[in-house]
């Protein structure tokens, strides 16, 4: 007996969002008109992108086994950027301006802008620029970065429901992409996009960050919210059809299972290897749920995920058709 496939056709498709402009080599995500990876019934003009996270200051709380691979580049964003792209093969980078946080060094907006300028100088890939978390400081920092790096098509991370007006205004004014972050909540994701559209932000320049839980720490919530966002998008909801970005590294490496050394939990096995599994497993689940940009910390995770994606997608010029 042969199995007859009845391809499902949807009313809508994802928007296509292009990251990077100006001196960047731009990359586009989104555009798929079916459920994630349903390559047998839908078309996906672009493959998911893999980003590595780098930081402006030494991320002292990062786990040793991830710090090791970045040795010599921690807290040196330009160097880290070069390594991330040239050695580790990241499609793009997320620059986490953690050092601008008032409790983590309180670096000034000008210093942050200089850091981003140095990274832009060092590599040609698109950047996601992450501020220290919603609030006045983040607005100051990202507004300055946005202004100084006008026209580079940076993805500013992130606008929230309560605090989006400043970032919306600078994204519009200086030609950047805006990441809207919602707390694992489809309604807030939609509401935020309505607000952004109302603030004259072009939704073809918006990514949704649904907020990620690591494996074992609420991943399933994120998974089902992403699923719902995707279903709404495919049913034609123009306010939810932006591509999704997931900051996996941060969450996966927070998990106890990724941090505890084998000495303490002999049954859990070798920690560095276990941690990479954790990051990879979290990512794969989220890619299946529809993540279009996945941000990672460990280059080995990136390599493994890339291998899997390569087996699913043709590796043609920046984008992809499905095998």
């Amino acid at each position: 007996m042969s199995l007859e496939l009845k391809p499902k056709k949807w009313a809508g498709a994802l928007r296509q969002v292009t990251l990077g402009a100006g001196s960047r080599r731009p990359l586009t995500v989104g555009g798929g008109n079916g459920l994630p990876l349903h390559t047998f019934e839908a078309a996906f003009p672009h493959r998911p992108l893999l980003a590595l996270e780098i930081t402006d200051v030494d991320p002292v709380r990062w786990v040793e086994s991830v710090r090791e691979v970045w040795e010599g580049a921690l807290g040196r964003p330009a160097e880290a950027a070069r390594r991330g792209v040239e050695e580790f093969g990241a499609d793009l980078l997320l620059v986490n301006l953690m050092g601008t946080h008032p409790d983590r060094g309180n670096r000034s907006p000008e210093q942050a802008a200089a850091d981003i300028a140095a990274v832009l100088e060092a590599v040609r890939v698109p950047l996601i620029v992450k501020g220290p978390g919603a609030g006045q400081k983040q607005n100051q920092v990202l507004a300055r970065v946005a202004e100084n790096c006008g026209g580079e098509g940076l993805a500013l991370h992130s606008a929230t429901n309560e605090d989006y007006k400043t970032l919306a205004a600078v994204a519009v004014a200086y030609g950047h992409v805006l990441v809207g972050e919602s707390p694992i909540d489809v309604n807030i994701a939609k509401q935020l996009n309505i607000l952004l559209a109302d603030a004259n932000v072009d939704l073809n320049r918006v990514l949704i960050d649904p907020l990620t839980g690591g494996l074992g720490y609420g991943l399933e919530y994120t998974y089902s919210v992403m699923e719902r966002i995707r279903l709404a998008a495919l049913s034609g909801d123009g306010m939810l059809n932006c591509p999704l970005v997931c900051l996996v590294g941060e969450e996966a490496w927070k998990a106890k299972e990724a941090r505890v050394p084998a000495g303490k939990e002999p049954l859990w096995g070798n920690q560095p290897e276990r941690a990479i599994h954790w990051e990879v497993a979290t990512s794969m689940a989220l890619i299946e749920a529809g993540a279009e940009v996945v941000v990672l910390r460990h280059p080995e995770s990136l390599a493994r995920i890339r291998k899997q994606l390569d087996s699913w997608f043709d590796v043609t010029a920046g984008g992809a058709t499905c095998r």
Partner: protein
Amino acid sequence: MSKIIASAAIRGGHACVRRAETALAECVDRYGWDKDVGFPSTAYALPVILALTGKRVERLGDLEEALGTARSWLPAEPTERLWLPYLGGALDAGAATLVAQEAIEALKPLRGIPSAFDYWLGPTADGILREQGIKLVDGRMPGFAACVGALPDDETAEQLARDLQERNLLVFMGSNAGGETMAAQLNRRGVEMNWETFLVPYGPDTSSIVHALGFACRAAFTFGGLKPGGIKETREILLYNQRRVFAFVLALGEVDDEKYATAAGAINFGFPVIADTDIPEILPSGICTYEHVVANVAHRDMPARAVEVRGVKIHTVDIPIPVRHGPAFEGERVRKEEVAIEFGGKHTRCFEYLASRPMDQVQDELIRVVGPEIGDVPETARLPLAIFVEVAGRKMQPEFESILERHIHSFLSEPMGVMHLGQRDTVWLRISKKARDAGFRIGHLGTVLLHKLRNDFPAIVDKVQVTLFTQSADVEALYPAAAAAYQSRDERMGALTDERVEVFYSCALCQSYAPNHVCIITPERLGLCGAYNWLDGKAAYEINPHGGNLPVRKGDSVDPVLGQWKGINDFIRNASNGSFERFSAYSMINDPMTSCGCFECIACILPGTGGIMIVDREYSGQTPVGMTFSSLAEMTGGGQQTPGFIGIGTLYALSRKFISADGGLSRLVWTTTRIKQRLGDKLRQRCEELGRPGFYDKVADETVCTELEPLIEYLAAVEHPALEMGEMV
């Protein structure tokens, strides 16, 4: 539009365009058509002309074209006999005036006239626009005031400037009144004027005020991403300003033709005019949000009146009280030994009463303590207190009074060292010695209410006035009005039935963890968390139309007994992502509403009794169905329809529509003592209405039994009606 204003504006427009044409001709004579013209350090050429005509003016030749366009907008000057009562004409003249004024300003350097001198700053560079304009757009600055003319004296000028600064408004100054200027007045008072102090003097000519509009246009280009172009684009730029840039014009001193014409220009942007002189008023007619021209306003009242007319919403970031405050202090108790002063409880009368008033009957920010303050009485004194809050708002409705009033509790719990319990006339309030020593006064209760109400309910509250009565005679005098209001609200709420309204409200707040769940809130069935009733839904929608609560039209009735309507079912299908086709408002058996997880209580059927039980979240013991609340919750929650199990808000038990399709309250055979206490007399009353004498006492609770067998015996012994009603399924 007033004929006087229209005629003056049109005359002013003609005069301005003529002046610009003359100035242009003079410059062309001297430099030729190709000479560059423009403001320094801007990428937007002449921004007002760019916005209004879509054309970039870079050379004198371009300016000629722009003035030609302006001239074509000018209607004929009205004469005694020729009069077209046509608002559009005056507005067109206003637009033409702005074009002419910008031309005059741009030509100044070519004619050897300085733009920036003394304290006058002249046109604004893009750098400053980027720095400051964004504040207008993202709301850090609520708006700007364009002050045209001068005040009667220096002191009043300073007062007005300070009042505007205090509200965080950007102040632009330009023009003069009989040669006197506001900026000169401030200068004589030693007031610093620059972009840091938000006091920006453009120039002593009326034409200089066009820079304020240029600022607004550039904000729309930069931060609104709007592009100049044709009529459609111009309209969008004007609308953007109307919706987002909360600006207004203060006409100070005598208003001449050019000022009328400039004002008409500003009205195109939705910026209303507030005047201190007796000029004709233009009340609502469609371009500004509310009134267009309001006259005869005293200087002291100008900022407040302007803010009100423009619909500027002021958000206070730091509430000015001498103690820390925030939700973190909400549960805090002030113990007996710490009390500085106390109101209510068992000792004195203490109540809170919030009433809505027409806009002109509330003086915003007026806070009064009538009677002794905290320092006037000995420590640990017990005083009576009436907290009398009067609010006004363009969108305020009397129905919202009770919602706002209910928030007084959480607002007054927030300051550190203030304890607030109860509501309405059961309030018990204490202020601690520490708070008093830090400077907290009774009057600060009003400060907190003022700012919290305005911050949290900007859509419905524009003005707040608070009076705190601390003398027995006043408190008693006000009480009957408050008591009558409580009663009439309850009656109104009681009379509000599902049949009498056309819309119900949905609530999708819980979809984050129960993705297909949605509550339908009807007047007679509140949300299952107990936190949202129909009025709350209505107010929430008014406050934020993009939020989790939406109005849903009932539409045609599908089944009046089950409580199904076509409109609701259609909505449910969509909102539940296709998971459910139908909801019954009045049945727990047929198509019951889904339950997310935050229900106050669970109602479930008790096989063998013909009845149901209701168990509350706090009850940790065993129930006759053989499950604790938490195991029941697992079966009931998650956004599923589980016939026989529903999550409910406790108060739903009192509703006449409580599972009315399944037999109603008469089915209740067991509940917890906590629920009985909470519902108290109201439950007794409802039981009596059932027409079954002694019913209340037949409902068992955990003190009677916690298992099914003894319960059935008990029900038989007391002859509970459910036994005869037959099984529910």
